[in-house]
């Protein structure tokens, strides 16, 4: 190996580093470290002039290794690698010392922090001396896109990507597209209902030749990596084919009755049913879980559209990118939580939406047991803000505006109903504030709770009791109906999706963005994007917007001919490998195979699948598997530097 010539560049990061670390002292220290030929500091190393200093020095001082002591490599390693590349050096001859997150931000003792920064720089210099040039690996990108979830976010992503010219597989586990939005009734700020928005999207999806829709289909596995995923799907039977004329004879004879999830359990349905009452459901379907296969429907069907022998079908597709748009589940209060389940006069906001929908179970009449309630209490933050032991800590964002929108609809139709909103904080952000103003003008009464209100159900009467903050006393309001403004929770199969797609999730269970602020629709896993409420509560417009945004990212990947992956992955030296197979046993990504040549075995890494986790390198008993850029000798150099007393 050539004699290392290292340049060390120490960033002030404004006062982020320089406020705690004596940068000049670190520079002087670095100058005396082995193989260091230049050491400099600058106020913002990442800025254009900072980068220029490094580029210039590489040429002027014939540097062949660079150490940047600044922030976390997740922040700027890429930036500085680009600088090396631009100056003609292999970008992997860069080593970063994190003297911000690992030093200045977490220490207050300036002298000790400076000493630590010196040590971190020394360690980085020792590592830099052992760095080898690495070449990025390129793969061809498959142009197809998989979208998991056929709600408005998924459909929007599908439409935008297809209109931009890419083949889309739109996979929905339910028998019909439309997601939760289809059931929401009238939406805020428009005359449209959720079903109108979802319905027109479904029409566009149907008409678009670039979209292949797979309903009643579940994701089984996703193998491969960015640009080249192999996807296995399981299409479940609906037992009814397209000959169905929706005559409804089958429903009359079906003996099985179950709660209708489309109506949030307000009504019942049969095992053979129309998955949505709206016009966009094209055929009846049989719910395989509840069907007893009695065969009555088959006998009565006048067009022979039913086949109870239909089987599941495994489908394999190849795509370059995946968008997860699996939505959310409405929070379902447990029995007794605010009286829910104890009386049919305690309903959720989602159920109210169904009752107000002209296509809902009451054709839009708000009637409970045949009567229009004279007074309604809306209790906010149900399932959110830790109001009850079962609830989630976060704010569900859409419930305040959604509730007020429903109240205004109610007030239009039934101006004489007394409406109480019992809330904690009214979060009608942005222009939705106007809903709040209008509600106040309509004499909706707002009351503020501190602790979760109690709903007491005695026979036919309901009473909501709570400590009202403005009045400063406990009050009870007798009402005819209680509506629980329930929030959103992670979809129930989120854990499965997360495992299959190898994406992270936050403590609350929603999928995690690559960066909360600046990469809100990208997963940490390359080639996987996130749309809609699967990353956290969103209203309809926000979900649709994020669907488009995810499409934008996916298209950005799919339109590239090739994708590059970082070469900091595992590598196995065949001449040292005994083919013992330990690495194969431990690799979590299935990225290592045993190849047999002339009856001897040796292991081989599949670069496209390797994520560079290093497990094989740690376990390889021969030292044949090494993690590039983190080889044993490189780590050893770091440890020796760390423990060396100057």
């Amino acid at each position: 190996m050539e004699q290392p010539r290292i340049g060390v560049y120490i960033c002030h990061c404004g006062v982020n580093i320089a406020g705690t670390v004596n940068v000049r002292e670190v520079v002087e220290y670095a100058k005396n470290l082995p193989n260091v030929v230049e050491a400099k500091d600058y106020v913002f190393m990442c800025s254009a002039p900072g980068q220029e200093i490094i580029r210039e020095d590489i040429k002027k001082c014939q540097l062949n290794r660079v150490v940047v002591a600044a922030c976390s490599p997740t922040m700027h390693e890429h930036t500085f690698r680009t600088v090396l590349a631009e100056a003609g050096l292999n970008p992997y001859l860069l080593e970063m010392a994190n003297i911000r997150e690992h030093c200045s931000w977490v220490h207050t003792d300036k002298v000790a922090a400076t000493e630590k920064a010196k040590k971190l720089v020394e360690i980085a210099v020792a590592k830099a001396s052992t760095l080898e040039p690495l070449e990025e690996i390129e793969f061809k990108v498959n142009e197809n896109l998989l979208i998991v979830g056929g709600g408005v976010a998924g459909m929007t992503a599908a439409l935008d990507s297809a209109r931009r010219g890419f083949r889309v597989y739109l996979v929905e586990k339910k028998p019909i597209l439309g997601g939760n939005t289809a059931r929401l009734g009238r939406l805020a700020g428009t005359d449209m209902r959720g079903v109108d928005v979802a319905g027109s999207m479904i029409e566009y999806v149907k008409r678009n030749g670039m979209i292949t829709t797979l309903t009643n289909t579940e994701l089984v596995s996703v193998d491969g990596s960015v640009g080249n995923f192999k996807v296995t799907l399981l299409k479940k039977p609906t037992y009814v084919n397209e000959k169905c004329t929706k005559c409804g004879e089958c429903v009359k004879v079906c003996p099985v009755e179950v709660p209708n999830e489309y109506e949030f359990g307000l009504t019942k349905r049969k095992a053979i049913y129309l998955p949505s009452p709206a016009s966009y459901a094209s055929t009846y379907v049989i719910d395989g879980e509840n069907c007893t296969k009695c065969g009555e429907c088959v006998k009565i069907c006048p067009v022979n559209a039913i086949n109870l022998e239909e089987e599941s079908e495994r489908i394999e597709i190849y795509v370059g990118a995946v968008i997860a748009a699996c939505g959310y589940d409405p929070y379902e209060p447990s029995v007794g939580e605010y009286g829910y389940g104890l009386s049919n006069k305690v309903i959720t906001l989602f159920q109210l939406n169904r009752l107000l929908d002209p296509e809902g179970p009451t054709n839009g009449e708000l009637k409970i047991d045949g009567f229009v309630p004279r007074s309604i209490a809306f209790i906010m933050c149900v399932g959110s803000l830790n109001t009850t032991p079962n609830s989630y800590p976060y704010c569900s964002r859409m419930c305040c505006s959604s509730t007020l929108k429903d109240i205004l609809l109610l007030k239009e139709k039934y101006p004489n109903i007394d409406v109480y909103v019992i809330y904690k904080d009214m979060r009608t952000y942005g222009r939705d504030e106007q809903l709040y103003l209008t509600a106040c003008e309509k004499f909706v009464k707002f009351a503020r709770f501190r602790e979760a209100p109690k709903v007491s159900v005695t026979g036919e009467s309901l009473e909501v009791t709570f400590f009202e903050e403005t009045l400063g006393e406990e009050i009870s309001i007798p009402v005819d109906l209680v509506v629980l403004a329930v929030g959103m929770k992670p979809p129930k199969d989120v854990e499965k999706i997360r495992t299959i797609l190898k994406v992270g999730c936050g403590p609350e269970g929603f999928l995690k963005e690559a960066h909360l602020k600046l990469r809100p629709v990208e997963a940490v896993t390359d080639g996987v994007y996130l749309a809609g409420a699967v990353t956290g509560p969103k209203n309809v417009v926000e979900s649709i917007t994020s669907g488009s945004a995810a499409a934008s990212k996916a298209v950005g990947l799919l339109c590239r001919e090739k994708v590059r992956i970082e070469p900091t992955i595992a590598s196995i030296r065949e001449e040292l490998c005994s083919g013992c197979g330990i690495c194969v046993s431990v690799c979590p990504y299935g990225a290592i195979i045993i190849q047999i040549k002339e009856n001897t075995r040796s292991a081989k890494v599949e670069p496209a699948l390797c994520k560079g986790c290093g497990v094989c390198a740690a376990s390889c008993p021969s030292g044949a598997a090494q993690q590039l850029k983190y080889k044993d000798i490189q780590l050893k150099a770091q440890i020796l530097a760390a423990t060396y007393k100057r």
Partner: protein
Amino acid sequence: MEKPKMALYWCASCGGCEEAVVDLAEKILDVINLVDIVFWPVAVDFKIDDVEKLPDGSIVASLINGGVRLSEHEHVVKLLRRKSKIVVAYGACSSWGGIPGLANLYDKEEILKYVYGDAPSVDNPGGVRPREKHVEEVELELPSFLPRLLPLDVVIDVDYYIPGCPPTPEVTWKALEILLSGNLPPKGSVLGASDRALCYECPLNNTKPDKILLKDIKRPHQVIVDPEKCLLTQELICLGPVTRGGCGALCIKAAMPCTGCFGSLDEVIDYGGKAVSYFASILDYYTEEDVERILDRLPDPMGVFYRYTLPASRLRGKIKTTMR
């Protein structure tokens, strides 16, 4: 023409390595034809004085087996170093300490107390202990017992290593061929053995499944071993994957798991550490209780994973500094 001179010496060892040289059988005659043996206490009657009289560097190669445990060992190996062009650590004990090196888990006093007192087979009512000086009629000086056993290369500069407990005749012969060929590999090389782990030459390597994940571990006396199936997959702790090959998988062929006497491969920094790391990674356990249970199944982890290499390892042993 004068034949090249060669010396053999034993330090703290069991004698197996000496036996291994003799096991060359008729090939020993070829050796005698090729070299003059100038020192070999176990077989030839030369004294240390004779060695001291030789000019420095006049011995072509010295093969030293056993670790350095006594002051005498230290004295002789330093002498041989001075007189030899090449010094070879012969066998596991000399290379890394070997089984006697496990004594480094105890300090000198603990060892003496056990060996001359507490051991069940000892009958020593007077509590007699060896003494370094004995004065009765004349003053006798006995070699002193060093605080710990040292691998040869800690005491003197070592040029090559021949692994094994003991090295097999094949390995010994191959190593001698290399030494006598004059075509010497880089200093520090291991002679006569393989560059890959034992699995590579193991006849059972192809019987492994895709993934090896162990639910339990067993000791050889607890199972009836299927000799046609990889021993590791039979839940025996076989150290074949982490051990240098070259022995011809002798133990495996006798249905015994590899215990690691050929030591680690070139790229491995610490044999025992690597052995633990590899073995732990294929245990299919997740909970704390599982870990406790597996540790109960391993009464002597040091003896399993560091059987031959403790003194040369990063751990070195457990020498207490305070003595009572």
